[in-house]
């Protein structure tokens, strides 16, 4: 029983592979309906599945593939042409076969699915002109008739009975008419057909027994190759074989050429096919992935052992000069390096492994949505680690579906706008800078910024005010927000508002990035940047407090050396947090030793005289990019860059998010890998803001949502988003009354609580002159109002210079440079709540969470 199971398992693996190939071939056939090679390949695949399923007694499978085979054999012989109808039916058959195989895989037996309809459709398509019983409602125009099919041949085909194609051994089809006469298949030259026919007529009915075993295992016998190539008839082969069995010493091909049943050229071609087939069979083996992983691990150990040996020998070089041992070690070293490289390669797979599924996806979806789409693929051989490939499969499929469904217009629309009816979807892959770039380019309608903006506002993702200052790029990126969908109605293809955000999350989860560009009316391009491999990454090794750590190179933007005057001049404190002015932009800093708890938090930062970095020690700032934010990691030393193998941490250390894993360096020591995003979050550098991307940092002046700049106390300036400013008032100081511990003022028939920004921000202004007026910034929402007491109203700013810094402190969410002054961004939520704890709980509308994010978006 076990042996049978094994055979079935092998059959399943092989068949699944064959089916994938079949999908590809059928689609390629649609482009090139006359390709004999493709037809032969498709036929061969179905033929193999049919033969084996008969042998293994999977009768449903056998029956289904048999009908398909009949259709294919007629197609191959050029008696009927491949129409869209036929290829749809054949693809449906492939799906049905796949399902059957799936059932067999899961239950061991064929399922109960009824395929009679499909079989009927397939049968009805056997003849031209016969309308398919279960044909699609709107049959597409037939592919132009094959120009090469001579009329005489079609006539011959019609007059002949419908013979089953050549059957392999173990074939029994009692219901089928026995092929007493072979149809003249299309031969290489028309002149050869007549002799072939003659040969066929002389032939005895084909034996139903086994064919003589081919001389080469693994490659089909030459006769079969000739038949499949359509260069000879099954009968002619049988005759030649018979002669061989009767003692003819000549090779089969030669006998056939001598009989005139085929041409020398065809035999030569067949021999080539045969050897090509053999070389494929002989040159590749299936290997368990686990075995590869374990190989990889072993090679890693070998490398370490090699390194130890070499360093030991280096120590003893004087005594063991030129010894045989040293030479052997050298050799071992070389071989090990090579081995390492090769084993790494075994894990790499071409992106085509994922792409090859796309033609089918595109075809089916295009049909479903009434689109005409041509899929072009560029760089299919681009290699990625298999784990990465696995991870990008779903996002990529989603983007492709999206491009067909939303990107490319209907043929009518395209025609109306002067574009060719057929849309082009291009997939590009290439390596650059140690990363793989994947592009999904369509020449469709493009993405309408206004529609996105309107939709985003409608869904409450952004406000009108924010929109007015958003760049086109930022607007475009809104499509990656959760809950965003442009689809007017929900289809089973898209429109549920899940997808793009998932694409983004998934790609970012493997250390990649997604970008989109679009031109209205001309199409969109989605760009994925992904690491080559997850297991081996380039990393920067740094030193901190006598220990080494690794930082993934993808996060590293640049290195800044801190030394001498430069170091001291560069680091400033804003609200007690260190920042570095890098090319006139504020770079928030994070000290690694603090983050790792090696020195007490904030100790070095308390006094303005005591710079965050020891003058003597110097150090480096590693400028990192994580979660679309930039910050500087202050370390003691920068050591080198190397490829490291990422090893997961055990369960005891999984709870420490600062570490992304560990690795073993060449000297055998274990080094922790730091997680840049976590470091950034831990140090509160990151705010959940929208749209600040690396590109923004290069700009000198950035537009922001308008903010009201006020003076809080002394020289401190704060910014309040204009959105949250309902009115500016000046009231006499004497009108301020007290209710409990709060200051209030009577304002438009209500009691309005006040909060002094100076108190809130911990600044101590001079006591207010009771005669002077008090400047109020009033924020009203529904029935409730709060008033912010400020020292002076200064300005309304609509742009900032340099980057926004996220250094926050009590009641702050960060700071920006407006003009040449640092302006602190007030945390409005806490400011409002400080005045009125129930402010948000009463009215409907935005929740507090939304207020926060709104605010943060506004100040990006």
């Amino acid at each position, binding site marked *: 029983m076990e042996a049978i199971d094994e055979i079935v398992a092998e059959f399943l693996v092989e068949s699944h592979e064959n089916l994938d190939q079949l999908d590809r071939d059928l689609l390629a056939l649609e482009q090139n309906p006359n390709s004999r090679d493709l037809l032969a390949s498709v036929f061969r695949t179905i033929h193999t599945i049919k033969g084996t399923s008969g042998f293994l007694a999977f009768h449903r499978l056998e029956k289904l593939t048999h009908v398909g085979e009949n259709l294919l054999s007629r197609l191959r012989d050029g008696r009927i042409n491949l129409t869209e109808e036929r290829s749809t039916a054949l693809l449906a058959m492939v799906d049905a076969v796949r399902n059957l195989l799936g059932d067999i895989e899961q239950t061991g037996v064929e399922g109960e699915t009824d395929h009679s309809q499909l079989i009927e459709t397939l049968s009805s398509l056997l003849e031209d002109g016969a309308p398919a019983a279960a044909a699609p409602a709107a049959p597409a125009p037939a592919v132009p008739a094959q120009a090469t099919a001579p009329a005489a041949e079609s006539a011959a085909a019609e007059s002949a009975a419908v013979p089953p194609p050549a059957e392999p051994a173990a074939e029994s089809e009692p219901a089928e008419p026995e092929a007493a006469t072979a149809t003249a298949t299309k031969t290489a030259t028309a002149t050869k057909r007549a002799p072939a026919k003659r040969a066929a007529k002389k032939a005895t009915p084909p034996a139903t027994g086994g064919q003589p075993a081919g001389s080469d295992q693994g490659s089909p016998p030459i006769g079969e190759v000739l038949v499949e190539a359509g260069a000879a008839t099954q009968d002619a082969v049988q005759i030649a074989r018979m002669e061989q069995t009767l003692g003819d010493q000549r090779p089969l091909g030669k006998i056939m050429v001598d009989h005139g049943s085929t041409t020398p050229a065809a035999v030569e071609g067949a021999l080539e096919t045969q050897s090509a087939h053999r070389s494929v069979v002989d040159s590749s083996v299936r290997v368990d992935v686990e075995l590869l992983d374990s190989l990889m*691990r*072993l090679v*890693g*150990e070998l490398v*370490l052992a090699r390194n130890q040996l070499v360093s030991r020998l280096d120590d003893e070089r004087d005594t063991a000069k030129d010894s045989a041992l040293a030479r052997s070690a050298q050799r071992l070293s070389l071989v090990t390096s090579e081995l390492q490289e090769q084993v790494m390669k075994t894990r790499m797979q071409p992106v085509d492994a994922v792409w090859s599924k796309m033609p089918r996806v595109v075809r089916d979806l295009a049909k479903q949505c009434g689109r005409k789409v041509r899929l072009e693929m560029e760089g299919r051989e681009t290699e990625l680690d298999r784990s990465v490939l696995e991870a990008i499969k779903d996002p990529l499929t989603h983007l492709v579906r999206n491009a067909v469904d939303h990107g490319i217009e209907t043929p009518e629309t395209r025609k109306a706008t002067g574009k060719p009816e057929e849309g082009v979807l291009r997939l590009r892959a290439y390596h650059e800078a140690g990363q793989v770039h994947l592009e999904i380019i369509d020449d469709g309608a493009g993405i309408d910024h206004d529609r996105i903006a309107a939709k985003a506002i409608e869904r409450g993702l952004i406000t009108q005010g924010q929109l007015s200052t958003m760049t086109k790029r930022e607007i475009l990126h809104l499509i990656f927000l959760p809950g965003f969908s442009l689809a007017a109605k929900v289809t089973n293809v898209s429109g549920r508002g899940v997808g793009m955000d998932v694409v983004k999350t998934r790609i970012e989860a493997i250390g990649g990035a997604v970008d989109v560009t679009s031109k209205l009316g001309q199409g969109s391009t989605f760009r994925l940047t992904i690491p080559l491999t997850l297991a081996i990454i380039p990393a920067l090794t740094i030193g901190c407090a006598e*220990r080494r750590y690794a930082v993934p190179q993808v996060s590293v933007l640049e290195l800044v050396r801190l030394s001498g005057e430069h170091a001291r001049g560069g680091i400033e404190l804003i609200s007690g947090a260190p920042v570095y002015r890098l090319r006139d932009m504020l770079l928030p800093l994070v000290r690694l030793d603090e983050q*790792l*708890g*090696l020195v007490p938090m904030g100790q070095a930062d308390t006094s303005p005289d005591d710079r965050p970095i020891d003058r003597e020690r110097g150090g480096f700032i590693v400028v990192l990019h994580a979660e679309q934010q930039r910050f500087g990691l202050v370390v003691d030393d920068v050591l080198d860059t190397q490829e490291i193998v990422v*090893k*997961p*941490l*055990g*369960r*005891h*250390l*999984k*709870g*420490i998010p*600062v*570490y992304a894993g*560990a*690795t*073993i360096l060449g000297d*055998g*020591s*274990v*080094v*922790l890998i730091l997680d840049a995003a976590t470091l950034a979050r831990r140090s509160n550098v990151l705010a959940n803001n929208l749209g600040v991307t690396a590109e923004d940092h290069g700009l000198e002046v950035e537009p922001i949502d308008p903010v009201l700049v006020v003076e809080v106390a002394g020289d401190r300036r704060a910014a309040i988003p204009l959105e949250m400013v309902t009115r500016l008032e000046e009231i006499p100081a004497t009108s301020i009354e007290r209710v409990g511990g709060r200051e209030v003022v009577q304002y438009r028939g209500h009691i309005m609580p006040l909060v002094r920004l100076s108190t809130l921000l911990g600044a101590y202004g001079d006591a207010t002159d009771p005669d002077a007026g008090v400047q109020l910034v009033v924020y009203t929402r529904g029935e409730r109002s709060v008033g912010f007491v400020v020292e002076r109203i200064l300005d309304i700013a609509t742009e900032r210079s340099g980057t926004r810094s996220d250094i926050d402190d009590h009641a702050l969410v960060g700071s920006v440079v407006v003009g040449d002054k640092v302006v602190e961004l007030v945390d409005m939520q806490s400011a409002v709540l400080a005045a009125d704890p129930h402010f948000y709980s009463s009215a409907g509308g935005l929740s507090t969470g939304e207020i926060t994010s709104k605010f943060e978006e506004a100040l990006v």
Partner: protein
Amino acid sequence: MSQLSTFHVGKYLFGVDVALVQEVVRLHQITPVPLARPEIAGLINLRGAVLTAIDLRTRLGLPPAETTKERVNVVVRVDDEPVSLLVDEIGGVLEVSQVPFEATPSTVDERVRDLLIGAYTLPDRLLLALNAERVLDVPVEARA
């Protein structure tokens, strides 16, 4: 549990089920992990695999070793994850099926007692049988 792999930590003699012990190695390199709990001694490289090492002294609430003598990694495998226990010195494998077994005596420190299955009274001393699973059950969350 008829055979125990024994080792010394401080003045105690401990033993764990020999079936759980994968191997015993002496490694001089250990990478400390900042932010981890004090029981976590660090990471070791065991033939290309990165293992967490638990300082058994700290785990048992014993004072740090006075000597700077290299300690020994007893690699135990529980839940299919090998973890190293750092001990002072390795003993041998003892057959204990004939040795009288007792519940953990109350004289043993409370913190240690929680991690014990019981004690075997050898002729000359006590052999404390460790509950390996509980020893490895160091709370996961980081130290603040």
